[in-house]
């Protein structure tokens, strides 16, 4: 009985729409009129009909690159900062706060902040580059297909790096000091101690962070929208699945409902499936004390 209000709210506005989206995807639509049942026809259509047949692989690839880049940059920096703070607890609270400050800002606002900072002629970033003599580096960061996606990865990392840092910091704090001391006693170098003793014990944290990063990277929408508009920046260099879904659903053709629902289901299956597999896989590699 106590569960009813939560159940009603969650069921009606979260679960039912997802189930309905699946159901919608099984029909062909004419505008908002539901036409005949086509089974998985929409799925086939989405995957084979131009331009979606080309946009989907491109967008998916950008999501994958974005995930890989984020793991490599954001989470490595997060781990680095966590280790630095763990070894040098002086001012830990202050740094912790400053590093996770951008965490709270809306990705959309982060996008707008950076689009102002990175704007070609009057942006502070290019201004600083020119001032320190790196004039050749100054460029329209978000206007060139080559730099757009890397900039997206960096801006996103700037925002979220506090998350992995805090999780790693908590995990580091949970590792008993004796283990390291024992390793040091056996003559292991600092690097070796970290790699062979501490890192394996951080695997649960790595697992949590990997799954969270994956979900975050495949759900990204706001930041890209702010940095590059709904088309995904110059030449679609930042086009991702979230933007593609939005365009198909709300700027699509007559069968928009059918196609976008099929697309939504495929994205969902991909994100959900991969997170479950990732979680299983990483959990198996955990080391317990």
């Amino acid at each position, binding site marked *: 009985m106590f569960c009813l209000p939560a159940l009603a709210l969650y069921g009606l506005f979260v679960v039912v729409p997802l189930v*309905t989206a699946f159901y919608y995807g099984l029909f062909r639509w004419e505008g908002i009129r539901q036409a005949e049942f086509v089974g998985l026809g929409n799925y086939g259509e989405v995957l084979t009909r131009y331009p979606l047949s080309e946009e989907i692989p491109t967008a998916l690839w950008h999501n994958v690159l974005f995930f890989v880049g984020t793991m490599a940059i954001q989470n490595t920096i997060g781990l680095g900062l966590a280790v630095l703070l763990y070894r040098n607890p002086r001012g830990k609270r202050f740094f912790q706060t*400053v590093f996770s400050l951008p965490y709270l800002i809306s990705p959309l606002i982060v996008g707008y902040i950076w689009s102002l900072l990175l704007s070609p002629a009057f*942006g502070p970033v290019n201004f600083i580059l020119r001032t320190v003599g790196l004039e050749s580096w100054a460029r329209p960061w978000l206007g060139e297909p080559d730099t757009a996606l890397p900039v997206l990865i960096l801006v996103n990392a700037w925002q979220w790096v506090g998350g992995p840092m805090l999780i790693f910091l908590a995990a580091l704090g949970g590792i008993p000091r004796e283990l390291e001391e024992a390793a040091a006693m056996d003559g292991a170098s600092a690097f070796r101690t970290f790699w062979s003793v501490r890192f394996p014990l951080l695997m649960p944290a790595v697992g949590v962070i990997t799954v969270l990063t994956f979900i975050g990277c495949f*759900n990204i929408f706001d930041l890209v929208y702010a940095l590059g508009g709904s088309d995904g920046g110059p030449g679609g260099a930042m086009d991702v699945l979230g933007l593609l879904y939005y365009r198909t659903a709300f700027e699509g053709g007559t069968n928009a409902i059918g196609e976008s629902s099929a697309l939504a289901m495929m994205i969902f299956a991909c994100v*959900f499936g991969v997170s479950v597999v990732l979680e299983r896989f990483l959990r198996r590699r955990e080391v317990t004390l």
Partner: protein
Amino acid sequence: MTGPVAQVRRRRLPGLAAQLMLWIYAAIAFGPLVLVALGSFRSNADILQRPVGLPDSLDLGNYLRAWETASVSTYFTNSILVTVGAVALCVAVSATAAYALSRWRFPGRALLAAFFLSGLMIPAKLGLLPVFYMFQSMGLIDTRLGLILLYAASGVPFSIFVIMGFMRGLPTELEEAARLDGAGEGRLFVSVALPLMRPALAVVTVFQFAPTWNDFFYPLVLLRSSDRYTIPVGLTRFFGEFATDRAALFAGLVIALVPLALIFAFATRQIISGLTAGMSR
């Protein structure tokens, strides 16, 4: 041989390097926000001439332009209304449900808990199109109430997850004692469980506040009239209309950030314990 002295010396130098790196990253994290704040007090001509620089005076003209001419005040009020409503509703229903799920034994309990928690992995946004048509038939399109219900609903899984995790660590003696004294279940919940849950409720409130305040996708699709826009959609309109008025844009961004800055200032501890909630299993 490495005596204690040698060890201290070996640690000190890297210590300095580490401090330096920490400060450098602090500048990277904080610098952009400082630039935005500084820009919000400068004039457009000044910004165009020198993109990085200090304001001449604490001129609030940009803020006034953003607040009134660009109707950021309307967006701000809407955001407050929607966020407070949604968070209150979400915390209320989640606290009751989490209490029942962690304290009562009833058939299907584990299944129900799993049903709620599976929502943590579901990208709720993919159900947007059905939500759109459902709202249309319920007359909730272009209303703030619709947004409140939607946000409250999508916050339920996380809130239940955090509160249940917290309840698991709480002793049940107090509740048993109250039950022996003849308190009913409703009474038990309100007078005994709720006060005990307070730390978890604080975490949940802080954690629902930011994403709700920040959300852009739902209002982008579900709202039509600009006098109901929340801050994020309002900002896209603002950035379109005032594209050349950079100073006002900076001021608008600062206004959008103020509530979050306040939350952050008052609730850093809750935020940090919430971020690491997933770790304690």
